[in-house]
């Protein structure tokens, strides 16, 4: 049996088809687009919550979707160690569902920010980063209004190695200038203790093909290939 991934479609999602495209046509893995009310985990080796504006971002980005039946199904996958990935709005959903620690506030500028940023890899043991090296600097775009990471206990996250990605300069320095949204500790992506659930604000699905990248990079592929590698290792 081949590997099969699910991408969950919430009302207001808008990166769902981009994510499907990359998994199907760039990574060449079987993938289904599944409406959130119909999602059943048993058929899938991994799940991705894509970017967008689920339920119009009413109340807070991700909070309404966090109560969807799809999240109950994803929780089963989370518990048995299958990869559960959230990109952008999907990342906010994971935080609101308490799959990953912390929360995402409105950007410090209060503006929607859409631009390419540099991302430094801090932990390469996770289900979404195992094809990278610690210290690698990757080029990815962000596109969000609520991406300012906040937590009460950053020390605990550091001690548990739960910070996966940070915004950095091209040289990998963690400066304020390189931090697009005011995130605590320049945090761009975090994981759960078991490292099978990762949420990140930047968009790997928009950075997986040379034609979409201003510098001709395709760093986004590393994320999806990491997910596949994680699934293969789990099976063996």
């Amino acid at each position, binding site marked *: 049996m081949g590997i099969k991934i699910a991408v969950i479609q919430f009302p207001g999602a808008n990166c769902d088809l981009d994510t499907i495209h990359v998994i199907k046509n760039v990574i060449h893995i079987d993938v289904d687009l599944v409406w959130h009310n119909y999602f059943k985990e048993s058929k899938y080796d991994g799940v991705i919550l894509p970017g967008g504006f689920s339920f119009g971002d009413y109340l807070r980005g991700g*909070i309404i979707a*966090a109560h969807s039946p799809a999240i109950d199904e994803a929780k089963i996958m989370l518990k048995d160690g299958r990869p559960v990935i959230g990109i952008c709005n999907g990342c906010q959903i994971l935080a*609101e569902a308490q799959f990953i620690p912390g*929360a995402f506030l409105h950007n410090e*500028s209060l503006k929607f920010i859409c631009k390419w940023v540099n991302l430094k890899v801090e932990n390469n043991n996770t289900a979404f980063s195992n094809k990278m090296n610690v210290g690698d600097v990757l080029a990815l775009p962000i596109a969000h209004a609520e991406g300012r990471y*906040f937590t009460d206990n950053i020390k605990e996250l550091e001690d548990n190695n739960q910070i996966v990605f940070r915004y950095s300069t091209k040289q990998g320095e963690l400066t304020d200038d390189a931090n697009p949204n005011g995130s605590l500790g320049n945090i761009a992506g975090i994981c759960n203790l078991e490292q099978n659930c990762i949420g990140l604000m930047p968009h790997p699905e928009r950075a997986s093909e040379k034609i979409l990248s201003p510098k001709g990079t395709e760093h986004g592929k590393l994320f999806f290939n990491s997910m596949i590698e994680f699934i293969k290792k789990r099976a063996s």
Partner: protein
Amino acid sequence: MALQEFIVEVIITNKEKARDPTGETIKRDLLAKKGYKMVSNVRSGQYLRFNVNSENEERAKNIVEDLLNKLRIFNPVTQNFKILKLQKES
């Protein structure tokens, strides 16, 4: 016992530790520039108003506190909530 309708008003604000750019901007770019230097701090928040059918005021308040917590209407990681006012619908 017949149920009565109560109004429960809730205000949700970010914790002090989390910066509030809306409040900061109002203070820095409006109040300070227009002569309201006596205003030392502004914090923004979110207002919610619940019409609740219940036996009494205390019960109406408990229902709202319960739903705020259980459904994470406020995010305890970053926010606090306060019940502003509780009154009978007239």
